[in-house]
């Protein structure tokens, strides 16, 4: 699994596809080929590798196959943003405490 993930993201085009799917919600080999300016065949091949690595899910809708980034991968992005924001709020509070030592605010290290 990990090996597939690493080889899947080693290619900048495949990283762009994941980014595009994350931003747009979903896409087809045709729409992603346009986004990346590559052939539809090339986009389809990248999507297959991403699919094999478990990074995108596919769904047949009428005549086309739509691809979406896996929710787990999206949740990971949200988690990253949330944790970075929380960390800076804490660091900002700590800076303020360091500048204005208030006996009530002093916590044991």
């Amino acid at each position, binding site marked *: 699994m*990990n090996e597939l*993930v*690493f080889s*899947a*993201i080693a290619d*900048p*085009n495949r*990283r*762009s596809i*994941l*980014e*595009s799917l*994350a*931003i747009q919600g979903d896409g087809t080999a045709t729409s992603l080929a346009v*986004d*990346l*300016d590559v052939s539809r065949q090339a986009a389809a091949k990248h999507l297959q590798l991403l699919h094999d690595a478990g*990074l995108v899910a596919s769904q047949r809708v009428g005549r086309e196959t739509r691809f979406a*980034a896996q929710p*787990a*991968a*999206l949740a*990971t*992005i949200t*988690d*990253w*943003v*949330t*944790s*970075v*924001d*929380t*960390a*800076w*709020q*804490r*660091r*900002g509070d*700590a*800076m*303020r*405490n*360091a*500048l*204005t030592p208030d006996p009530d605010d002093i916590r044991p*290290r």
Partner: protein
Amino acid sequence: MSAMHDTPTAPTTVTTEHELPASPADVWELLTTDEGFASWSGEGASIDPTPGGPISTPDDATGVPRVGAVEAAEPAERLRYRWWPVDNPDLVSVVEIDFHPTSSGTRLIITERPALPMNAIACVLTSTTPRLRPAHRRSLLHASR
């Protein structure tokens, strides 16, 4: 590199603002001297505020020690560095801190964004989850909800 990577990084850039009751010069001291840095970041934290200078901190805010390197240092105006968790060197992000004088002190505008495209970060996180401390990640996330 495709044009995709040059598109605005808004969804993956985290921006926070902090009002601090001290002059930009004093806040600069707080952020860029070992003593000042350690006073809010954690005991033993150190920073060399010159381009290429090393940063190291236990980062008490997250409990995950981080290291990195300063990229730009303009006293009392701007500090930029890249850093990463000691236990996950693939997870590099760029931090930029802008200093703005206000009537009551200094407003810091801090941005942090991944040095890699976000999807690659997601994959790095996903594939290394067992190496992170799950309990700690959980507490960080819950604290903000």
